[in-house]
């Protein structure tokens, strides 16, 4: 039976891409795209960077203008799903409306993990996840004098760099021992630690926050587990996310650190797929083990894989993960997953902040982290997508150049 009714829960990068790709590849049936945010679907990465700094407009944030949804017959519904009925193949919305589907795609994403501390409900404590969150912070940015960022992950550090550039005193408090510990190698962490310190950011590693105190209902001080007291007038937290699995769980889908999907990105119900931040999938680049990735690339490429399947071209999801973050004048691009690396080789110049860290696991290249070396990133993606044969011994040789090596060692077609 051909699919005529597609419902997409969530209008982030993955949900939007699914709708766009279905139409681009000739799908003629209905598409209902559920968004629980006001306005047109938009890109999230600029929220903590260029949009926050006023460098790009709200218009430039949009995936597509309003006309797209009309001409391409993508029905954008500003409502939230409440109940999935797998047997009846329907989604009931908060408004009570019931949407029947032939295939449902859960692209519900993730929400910020909230601070659970004394004082975390004081005024002046913010997370950044949505355009509304950013819109609250934009007018405040120029008047922040003393900022604490809780969590040294991508978003926290992106905002720390923006605030430091505005002249704010910035403290970053992190439970781990280095910046972006979960995502990047020790060597690249060190490059970013030094850069942030040059920009005036003060790090407090290996410590959590024990309490937030206020003058009246406004935040004024933060206490750390190691006994420090830091005067602040604003706090941003970025301490990870929680996948939005509740409705899927209620519907009886298999849940384990997100919605469990197979290599085709199908959930435990054959009429429901899932993708992006909420989906826990077997990853080719993680030895086939399951992982949940929170990135634009992952959401977009998974959407394309699902759209292709719905259009009669089923194939497993095997795309190489890649990520990026912009902090100050540094662009970090990551190809592959560095989890489990046990050897690194640095190419380029640490002093000039133009370098790549090649991460190897038992002699095999698993990840290329590039700071202001976009060319290495692109080459890294090519190398990681095949059996590269690159070893630490080869990369360590004086004068080794990743681009040149890739060209010389291209497999014959």
């Amino acid at each position, binding site marked *: 039976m051909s699919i005529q009714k597609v419902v997409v829960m969530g209008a982030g990068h993955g949900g939007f891409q699914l709708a766009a790709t279905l139409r*681009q590849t000739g799908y003629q049936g209905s598409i209902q795209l559920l968004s629980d945010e006001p306005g047109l679907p938009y*890109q999230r*990465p*600029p929220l903590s960077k*260029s949009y926050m700094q006023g460098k790009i*407009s709200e*218009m*430039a944030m949009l*995936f*597509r*203008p309003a006309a*797209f949804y009309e*001409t*391409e017959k993508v029905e954008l519904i500003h409502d939230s799903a409440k109940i999935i009925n797998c047997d009846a193949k329907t989604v009931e919305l908060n408004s009570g409306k019931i949407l029947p589907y032939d295939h449902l795609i859960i692209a519900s994403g993730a929400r910020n993990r909230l601070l659970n501390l004394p004082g975390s409900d004081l005024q002046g404590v913010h997370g950044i996840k949505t355009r509304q969150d950013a819109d609250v912070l934009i007018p405040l940015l120029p008047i922040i004098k003393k900022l604490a960022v809780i969590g040294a992950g991508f978003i926290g550090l992106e905002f720390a760099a923006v605030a430091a550039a505005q002249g704010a005193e910035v403290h970053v408090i992190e439970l781990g021992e280095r910046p972006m510990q979960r995502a990047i190698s020790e060597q690249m962490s060190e490059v970013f630690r030094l850069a942030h310190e040059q920009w005036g950011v003060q790090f407090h590693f290996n410590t959590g926050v024990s309490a937030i105190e206020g003058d009246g209902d406004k935040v004024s001080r933060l206490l750390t587990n190691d006994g420090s007291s830091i005067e602040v007038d604003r706090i941003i937290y970025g301490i990870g996310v929680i996948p939005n699995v509740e409705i899927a769980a209620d519907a009886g889908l298999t849940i384990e650190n997100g919605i469990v999907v197979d290599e085709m990105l199908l959930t435990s119900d054959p009429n429901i797929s899932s993708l992006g931040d909420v989906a826990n999938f077997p990853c080719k680049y993680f030895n086939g083990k399951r992982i949940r990735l929170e990135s*634009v*690339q992952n959401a*977009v490429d998974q959407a394309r894989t699902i759209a292709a399947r719905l259009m009669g071209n089923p194939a497993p999801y095997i795309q190489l993960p*890649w990520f*990026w973050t*912009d902090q100050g004048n540094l*662009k970090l*691009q990551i190809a592959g997953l560095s989890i489990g690396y046990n050897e690194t080789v640095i190419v380029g110049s640490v002093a000039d902040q133009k370098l790549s860290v090649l991460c190897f696991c038992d002699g095999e290249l698993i990840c290329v982290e590039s700071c*202001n*070396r*976009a*060319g290495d*990133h*692109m*080459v890294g993606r*090519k190398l990681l997508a095949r059996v590269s044969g690159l070893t630490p011994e080869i990369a360590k040789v004086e004068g080794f150049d990743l*681009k040149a090596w890739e060209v010389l060692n291209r497999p014959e077609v």
Partner: protein
Amino acid sequence: MINVTFIEHNGTEHKVTAEAGQSVMQAATFNQVPGISADCGGAGACATCHTYVAAEWVDSFPTKTEMETDLLECAIDIRENSRLSCQLVLSDAVDGIVITLPESQ
């Protein structure tokens, strides 16, 4: 309004209009012009918005940054007039511009 003509590799023309301040990439994606995937949304992180700028317009844009040059080196079938369309900001000065798309990104 700025007129932009995109020509796909197979010769199909798409005449679209865009606003000053929008990028050439957005002019394409906003109008569903196929052939530009723009995976990173214009952050200069991915090289999937490679285009060719017609000769008479080449000098109308600031020269490539090192980042753009680096990314382009890894694109497919690069030529002298290759640009990442996310880096090309439209202005009235380029009204009528013609952009050709590569066979693949």
